[in-house]
Structures are given as C-alpha cells and as structure tokens.
C-alpha cells in the first residue's frame, strides 16, 4: 500500500543538509509498523514527508501509494489530496485553531473525504450518531465537540482528539507521530485501545515513537529503528523490548 524508496528529505530547501538520507520502507495492508529511534533521527520528518508538509522537501527518492488498486507517486500531490486519498497524520503537537469548533471541523473533514472517495455525505443526524460512537470509544465527553479545535486542550486531550479524528476519518494509512508522548498511563491505555480498535485488514498504521511503552498495548508486526536519517535495523515486536533494555546505542553503534 505504501512503498518508500531511497527517500532523501531536507527542511526548507535542497541546499540544506538532508534529515532523511535514503529511507526505504514497505507497508502492506493490515500491518502495524513501529518506527523508533533517538531524538532527531528523522522519524517525524518521514511522517511529515508522507503527509506532504510543505516545509519538508523531498530531494531524492519516491513515495508510492496504492489507491483503488492503482499505484501512484505521491510527491506531486497536495497534502489535502493525500488526506482525501486516505492518508492520515496524527501530529506530535496538534495545532490550536481558535473560532473553529471541533464538531464543525470533524464534519467538514469527514464530508471532504467521503466526497473524494465517491461516498455520499452523511446527513447531520447520522453524523452525530456516528460521532458519538467514536467519542465513546475514546471515553471523550460530548463537550469536546463544542470547543474550539484544540484550543485550551491539555496535552492528553489534544492527543485523544487526534485519535478521534482518525476514528472519524477511517484512513487507509495512518502515521501517528509520538501519539504516546504527554499521556498519563490511563490516557495511554484509552488511546491504545482506540488505535487497536481501528486496526483492520484493509488499513495500515505506522506508529512513530521514542519509547517502547505504547508497544506494551499495541503489538506491531514490524519494528524499524531509524538513526541519522536511515533505517538501520528492522525486526518483529521483540526488537522494541530489546531496545528498551539495551538502549538505542546498541543498534546505532552496531
């Protein structure tokens, strides 16, 4: 579903030093991948490059994405086109948007994705029902919907709100960037439960994380270690445990 080949990414412009220096990664439908690595290794850069963040310039390599049985190159696609084709990025630091209600935002985003995928928009009553189910899944209160998007939300609330958006939009491919950071243990369990419930044969999830603790609750099929812009090791879920006990130095120096 996603195949990244020899990806080089630099911030701002081609003259800047690359953060990613030749990453290749294959993600198939139904899989959960964990992308781990020390701070500054390029984990978030990879996630943002896939989502099409305008500040991250791909200087070499390609990102291919399979949509409706066809393989397409993503690099020319705008971020909103990627989103409407089913790619989702859960942000490490979700942005506050005053004056835009969470409910209005969710409904608009949902309808945009539906329209693009040839589905009918949901009428407001049905959407409300649909939204309530997703809120319950994440043990979120209905009052969240009336508030301005992320404005004044605690760190944990913002992260839950990201997973709520994922639940509503039902993406084909989700990159979740440090979704576990800033969560206390109870919130972590709820968020993990939410993510697990969204795991399905028709979609794929890539968890970008610094720590192993999220992986206590979500068992990935593959664990990749990224260091200095390259994937240096790939293994199964036991690799995460090994990293936890031995530290990143063990892989990076090997």
């Amino acid at each position, binding site marked *: 579903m996603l195949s990244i080949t020899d990806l080089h990414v630099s911030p701002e412009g081609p003259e800047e030093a690359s953060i990613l220096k030749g990453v290749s990664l294959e993600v198939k439908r139904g899989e959960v991948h964990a992308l781990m690595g020390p701070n500054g290794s390029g984990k978030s850069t990879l996630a943002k490059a896939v989502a099409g963040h305008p500040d991250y310039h791909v200087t070499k390599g390609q990102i291919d994405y399979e949509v409706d049985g066809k393989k397409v190159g993503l690099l020319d696609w705008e971020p*909103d086109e990627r*989103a409407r084709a089913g790619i989702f990025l859960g942000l490490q630091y979700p942005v506050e*948007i*005053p*004056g835009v209600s969470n409910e209005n935002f969710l409904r608009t985003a949902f309808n945009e994705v539906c329209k693009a995928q040839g589905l009918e928009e949901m009428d407001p009553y049905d959407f409300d029902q649909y939204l309530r189910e997703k809120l319950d899944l994440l043990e979120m209160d209905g009052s969240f919907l009336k508030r301005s998007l992320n404005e004044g939300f605690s760190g944990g609330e913002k992260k839950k709100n990201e997973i709520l958006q994922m639940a509503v939009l039902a993406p084909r491919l989700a990159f979740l960037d440090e979704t576990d950071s800033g969560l206390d243990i109870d919130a972590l369990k709820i968020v993990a439960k939410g993510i697990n419930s969204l795991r399905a044969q028709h979609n794929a999830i890539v968890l970008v994380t610094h720590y192993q603790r999220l992986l206590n609750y979500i068992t990935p099929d593959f664990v990749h270690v990224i260091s200095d812009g390259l994937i240096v090791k790939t293994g199964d879920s036991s690799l995460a445990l090994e990293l936890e006990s031995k530290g990143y130095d063990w892989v990076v120096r090997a």
Partner: protein
Amino acid sequence: MNDGDALEALLAPYKALGQTGPDSLHALRSLGAKGFADKGLPGRKDEAWKYTSLKGLTGSYAWKSEGERFPGTPPVDLLDQRIVFYNGHWDKTLSTLGPGYRFFPLKEERDFDPLTRQLQGEDCFTDLALTYCREAYRLEIEERGERPLGIYHFMDKNFEGTMAHPLLIVHAREKSKAHLFEFTSSTEDLGSALYNAHTLITLGQGAHLDHVRIFKSRKGLMPFSKVLAQIHKEARYGNAALALGGSFLRNDLRVELLGEGAHVSLGGLYVHDTNEDSSHVSLIDHKAPKTSSRQLYKGLLNHHSHAFFQGTIVVGKDQADIESSQLNNNILLSDTARVDSRPVLEIGHCDVKCTHGTTIGQMDGEQLFYLRSRGFDESKAKRFLARGFCEETLFPIENESLHRLSADYLERSILEKIGDGEEGP
C-alpha cells in the same frame, strides 16, 4: 478641489437654507457651521486622520431636507423590530417597533439644547452634522428586551451626489436591556456621496446594551460613523463594528465610563479586498474609578487594501482600580495590503491594569497544514481560519441571536472576499 473650496461647498446648502425650525435648532446649526468653518477639514498632520484618505470627498453635495419612501426592496432580510433610514431620512412605513421602545424625530425647542452641550468640541464632521441637524431622532429603551432591534441605513442611486447627516440619540433607562443590529449599506455604485452618521448613547445605571454595526457599501459612498457613548454606574456597553466592504469607512467611537462598575467592550473587524479602505478610531475615557474596558480589533486584508486603527485609553489621575486592555491583530494576505496601527495610552493613576498589543502577520502555515492534512483544500482551509480569526471580534455581543445573525453576515463576506464561491464553514 482644494480643502478651502471643499469647505465652502460643504456649507453651501446650509447658507442657502436660511432660518427654519425652532430657535434652538437654528442656534445649534449656526454653532455647527461656525465650528466647521473654523476647524476646516483635518490635514495630514492630525495623527488621528493621517491614514484616512479624504480625497474622495468632493465637497459639492446636495442636501435634502425632506425624505422619501424607500422605493425598492431592502437588500437584506429585515428584523421584525426595526427602524429604517432611507438616504438619511427615517422611513416610517418600513419601520416597526415592539413594546419597550419609543422612537420619534426631534422637533421641540427643548430637544436641541442638550445636543449642543454633548457635541461641542468634537471634530469637524460632528460640526457638519450639527450644521445640518434636521435629521435628528431619539430612541428610548424602556424595558429589558431580548429580541434584537434592527437599525438600517439604506442608500441607493437617488443618493448620488448628495449628503446626509443623520443623528440618532439612544437613551437606555436604568436597568433596561437591548440589542441593536445596525446595518449601513448602499445598494449601487455611486459617483460620490457622503453619509455622516452620529449616534449618541446614554446608558442609565445598570443598563445593558449590545450593539452591532455592520458596514457593507458599494463604491463611491463615504460613510462616516461616530458613536459617542456615556456609560453610567454598573452599566455595560458592548459594540462590535464590522467593516465588510466599501471603498471608504471612517468608524469613530468615544466612550466615557462615568460610574463605578461601568464596562465597555469594543470589537472591531475589517475584512478588505482590492481598493477597500477603512479607519477605526476609538477613545475610551475612564472617568470613574473601578471601571473596565476591553478592545479587540482585527483585520484581514487581501490584495491592494488598507486599514487604520487607532485606540486611545485615557485614565484620569483620580481614577483608581481600572482594568483596560486593547489588542489589534492583523493578517495580511498579500504583499500589497497595508495596515497602520497606533495605540495611545494616557494613564494618570498608578493603580491601573492596562495592556495593549499589535500584531501584523500572515496566515499561520502550521494551522493551514493541519486543516489540509484533514482533507480541506487550500481555499476552504483559509476560509475556516479566516472565519475563526474574525469571529472573535463579536465577543462583546452576549445576545445569542444577535451574535448568530452577525456571524452569518461575516461568513458571507469572507466567502466573497477570500472564497471561491463554495459552501462556507
């Protein structure tokens, strides 16, 4: 036409008029004409007018002492309770008022005396309004109402080449409550026309007034709008002025807080596209201790457009325990848009919490990316952000239906100015 000629031309219809009406009205007019001639039009050296271009003011305007009925269909849906002005005159047939209000034109000798006292010492446009003071009306708010009252100022092609100086006096009794929706609009492009409106507001003890003023005119009309408000003990005044279109607007507010517990909230918004320009000048005078004020002015400027904001806060030396804040935030959507912002603070007492700030920037790239990463195309994402940014300026309006009504107008303007015609947020 130079300033001297413009001055002469602006006074010409008055000179041709001779003495009509009660003596006190005549005295008021003479005083206005003299003040206007003495002061002259403001020049570039006057800081409060430096960024307001008066070059569209041609000077030769006809003045009609009698009004006509509005011949067309109002350009917007009218509220059930309303006062309608057509080309500067009260249109009685279109106006309808519910219980709790009294509205009447000023006619009596005694009506005009207090005006002289209240309006002396203002700028030359107030003098000009006094010079042509026949179009003076009084609105009495007697009870506590929840339904908004509309005040509409409509101008059409019959207003071409003319001027009007409507003067409205709003008096809210002690503990009364009302919500005013004021809408100023010209339905057609005009060559040149001057609409110089004044509103004098007095809020009695404990009264509460929400007041929205929307300006949406076509080319050629020069609307000047000045609100002079006196807020007594424990009274609250909320005013939100939205400049949503037009080649010119001058929006002046002067608020005096006269008793303990008096509060004023001012919101101001200018959403401009090519060749649109507006000036927003506020002065809040804390004339009693334990009074508070809050101001939030925002601008969203696209293409070649301009706006000016000047906010003055005055705290006298005997006034303790004052809280006052002022903020002006601007988003420039193009390289050719321009804003001039000028805070002025005159603080005479040390027991004062007073803050001010101005920002000028662009739309936030991370906010835009966030919305786009959820499937919003670029123009829809911009509209959502614009609407969220602008709607905060309605904060002074507590009445829900007035708030919603104003937000609808705001949303439509954003669609027109930075949208692509699609359904809005």
